[in-house]
């Protein structure tokens, strides 16, 4: 019972922080909306898209990048949440969490779940705005996307958690953002289908295909059409387990990774 009490408290705290930091919420929405309403509009003519699953017909570029932009929200939020963990650790509130009389892995998972649920809320607001601009998806897809967004969000949050355990100070983290977020986003199927990438470079295509973010985006893409992409699901779950394992290892009190010379 105390485990669930702590989980609820951590999720509520994330929600309250989110309410108190509305500018962060707006900033997180502006980014994908600029891509959707500006970048995609400009690219619509330049990029021809063939009919590939889950699409049954020709689609506009705006439709194509919606799942990738949901992934972008989850990716940025996952990393931002990790940034807040480094900040929390430096400012002390992470200490409060880690000294609670509960298994550390549970505290970390609770924190991860809280942050992911907030990200999912932002994804739905983004989908709602896209819908208002006539970028619509099948009704069942909005519902089916939830578990896909949850798994993808947990995977990316776990990556952030693992990174936060390895990063000693905030200033180091800024560099990691550049080396993680941008390569992960651009070397994926978020903005262009992988077959399109293969036309340019086989190597880049292979890197994109190995990128866990690609699988997260494809999982969301199919779910938005109420379809299951089992390989994408499998790879995303596997990446979640690996990143979580790394995070637990990094936050293990017996390891030196969260220590800082004072």
């Amino acid at each position, binding site marked *: *019972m*105390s485990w669930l*009490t*702590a989980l*609820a*408290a*951590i999720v*509520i*705290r994330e929600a*309250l*922080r989110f309410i*108190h*930091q509305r500018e962060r919420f707006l900033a997180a929405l502006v980014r994908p909306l600029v891509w959707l309403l500006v970048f995609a509009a400009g690219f619509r003519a330049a990029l021809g898209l063939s009919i590939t699953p889950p699409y049954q017909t020709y689609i506009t570029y705006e439709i194509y990048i919606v799942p990738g932009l949901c992934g972008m929200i989850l990716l940025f939020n996952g990393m931002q949440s990790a940034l807040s963990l480094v900040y929390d650790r430096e*400012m*002390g*509130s992470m*200490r*409060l*969490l*880690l*000294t*609670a*009389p*509960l*298994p550390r892995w549970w505290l970390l998972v609770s924190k991860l779940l809280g942050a992911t649920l907030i990200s999912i809320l932002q994804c739905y607001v983004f989908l709602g705005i896209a819908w208002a601009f006539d970028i619509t998806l099948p009704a069942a897809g909005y519902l089916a996307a939830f578990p896909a967004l949850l798994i993808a969000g947990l995977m990316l949050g776990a990556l952030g958690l693992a990174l936060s355990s390895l990063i000693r100070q905030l200033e180091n983290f800024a560099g990691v953002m550049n080396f993680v977020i941008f390569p992960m986003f651009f070397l994926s199927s978020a903005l262009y289908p992988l077959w399109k990438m293969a036309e340019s470079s086989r190597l880049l295509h292979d890197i994109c295909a190995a990128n866990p973010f690609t699988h997260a985006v494809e999982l969301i893409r199919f779910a938005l059409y109420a379809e299951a992409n089992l390989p994408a699901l499998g790879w995303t779950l596997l990446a979640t387990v690996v990143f979580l394992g790394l995070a637990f290892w990094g936050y293990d*009190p*017996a*390891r*030196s990774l*969260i*220590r800082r*010379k*004072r």
Partner: protein
Amino acid sequence: MTSRSNNGLTVEHLSFAYGATKALDDVSLTIAPGTFCALLGPNGAGKSTLFALLTRLFTAPEGRIVIGGQDLRRAPRAALAQMGVVFQQTTLDLDLTIRQNLSYFAALHGLWGRDARRRIDAALDRLNLTDRSRERCRTLNGGHKRRTEIARALLHSPRFLLLDEPTVGLDAAARRDITAHVHDLAAEQALTILWATHLTDEIADSDQLAVLHRGRLIRSGLCAELRGALPLSDYFLQATGTPA
């Protein structure tokens, strides 16, 4: 598992290093139940490292910590559940209200619903902050923030209260107030308290004194007995060669 300290706090042969830099070297300390123990040491003596090990933020490869009869390595949750901690840096979420901060902590310790509300109301009442409970912590002054953190650390009725330089950054009046407040708590609630400081005027003659210097515990005993006729600051200077 029963400890040799009759359920007080025991540290046995604790050593810890950051890479090649030794932070704690074979530290042993016993604090009897209901005792106010002042851990006195200059900056860099190893006080915060000892706190991090006592609160299991990380673990030491050598040595043993037993809190209230619970070995911190073998039964960390049972040991942590008996402990309230006030860290050197504030751990209040400044964007949340005072009540939200207290509720969050209470839930982390398994307190929820009516029981949590009752404890929080009592804590707010003691702090004279009932009317301000819905204000953000950011609006509190330094002294009130510290008192709120102390009240929060006691919400789950721990037997041990650990405070790592809790008066850092406070003005003289607030510092005196917090020091007296925690001494009173020790007397009224029979709490076992470990108070880390580098300021000798925060320590009373009746306190247990443990002097930490360059990672080693160089003196331990009743403050009045240790210092004898010397002012504590002179005694500290004599013991460490460093002014307090």
